[in-house]
């Protein structure tokens, strides 16, 4: 099998960038939401929970189309953002990152929520009697103890984001160098005569990235579990 061409590199690097940005931007929101869902009771909690999980059960094309309706150049939010803040998502790599972030969000939130629920609240009480205000209890006790779940959520979200196809291609199309990720490149290559070899190379790259991500998540989880048990 011959070498990876520069066009393929472009798709690979774009995929990595899109998935990384999507994960990094989504994580703080994911932690905040996971904390709300794990620890607070409020009106509309089950509706919020359902909304977060919606991208998991909706056809990706539907999510992508909804993003296009809302955030496309003529979309009600998109038009406002473009006019007032100069931010455009449609047919840009940032739009791909947004689509991937939305699609991977439920997978990111779930492990974080479970790990926050697993943090012993008696330790948080102990911290408060030692003089820690609620936000410092969160920063010094809850967050470090929930770290395994946060890392697991980030890896899972990243893996989902790098493989995302339906919502991305619907929202930002398949423009080489701008929005053509590994998945959409493979899709194009399969439909091209003589594209099989190139498609196979990208398939192998996908497998390598996914495997590395899984090994990394296992490693983080094991280290963090050791911390959790105080050894």
């Amino acid at each position: 099998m011959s070498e990876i061409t520069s066009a393929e590199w472009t798709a690979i690097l774009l995929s990595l960038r899109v998935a990384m940005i999507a994960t990094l931007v989504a994580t703080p929101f994911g932690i905040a939401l996971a904390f709300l869902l794990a620890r607070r009771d409020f009106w509309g909690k089950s509706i919020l929970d359902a909304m977060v999980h919606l991208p998991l059960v909706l056809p990706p094309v539907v999510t992508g189309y909804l993003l296009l309706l809302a955030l496309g150049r003529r979309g009600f939010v998109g038009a406002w953002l473009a006019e007032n803040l100069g931010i455009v998502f449609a047919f840009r790599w940032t739009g791909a990152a947004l689509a991937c972030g939305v699609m991977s969000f439920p997978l990111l939130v779930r492990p974080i929520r479970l790990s926050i629920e697993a943090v012993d609240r008696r330790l948080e009480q102990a911290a408060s009697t030692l003089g820690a205000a609620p936000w410092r209890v969160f920063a010094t006790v809850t967050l470090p103890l929930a770290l395994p779940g946060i890392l697991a959520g980030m890896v899972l979200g990243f893996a989902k984001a790098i493989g995302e196809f339906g919502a991305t291609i619907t929202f930002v199309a398949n423009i080489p160098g701008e929005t053509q990720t590994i998945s959409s490149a493979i899709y194009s290559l399969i439909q091209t005569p003589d594209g099989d070899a190139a498609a196979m190379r990208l398939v192998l790259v996908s497998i390598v990235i996914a495997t590395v991500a899984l090994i990394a998540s296992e490693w983080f989880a094991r280290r963090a579990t050791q911390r959790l048990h105080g050894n």
Partner: protein
Amino acid sequence: MLRVDIKKQLGEFMLEAAFASEGRVTGLFGASGAGKTSLINMIAGLLRPDRGVIALDGEILDDTANGVHVPPHRRRIGYVFQDARLFPHMNVAQNLDYGRRMNGLADDAAQQKRVTDLLDIGHLLDRRPGKLSGGERQRVALGRALLSKPRLLLLDEPLGSLDEGRKVEILPYLVRLRDEANVPMVYVSHDAGEMRQLATQVVMLKRGRVMAFGGIEVLPGG
């Protein structure tokens, strides 16, 4: 001085306690289920009374009539739990230093040495809580609470999770603490023997009511 005058519905029974204690060690004595832990959780601010007042050295901590509730982190009341509750992701030194950091207190090496010497935990500083024995864990928890420089120290059956041999090992530290640390304490136990050795005043609780209040002579079997 600690002044408590509260009412709190706890499941089937009503906890009603009123006392004012000047003692160095106020013992809360009673069988399990008498309301002892709920009472000191209220003193710590972890639980809110339905009605009543809690005051320490003239400062009102809870006053339901006037909607006053000082949150636990502003009370400067140390708490040693039955199950130690050391932070598993920090070593012993970091656990000991936690209260000082959270209260924004200056580093006080002399005080830290006094406390670690008093409790014989100087050799454990690098260890993780998972590598400590039950008795060592409880001593570190005591040190951690003391080093946050509390105005009052609450101890909820700190010997409760230890076997007899370990209890004998820890009790002398508690006596030294009472005589040297200069922090008033509230000591919860269902063990009359422990009470007799430690308490200077005793509040006897039974099913949520104060049955007796006085010196250690109110303890049964004495």
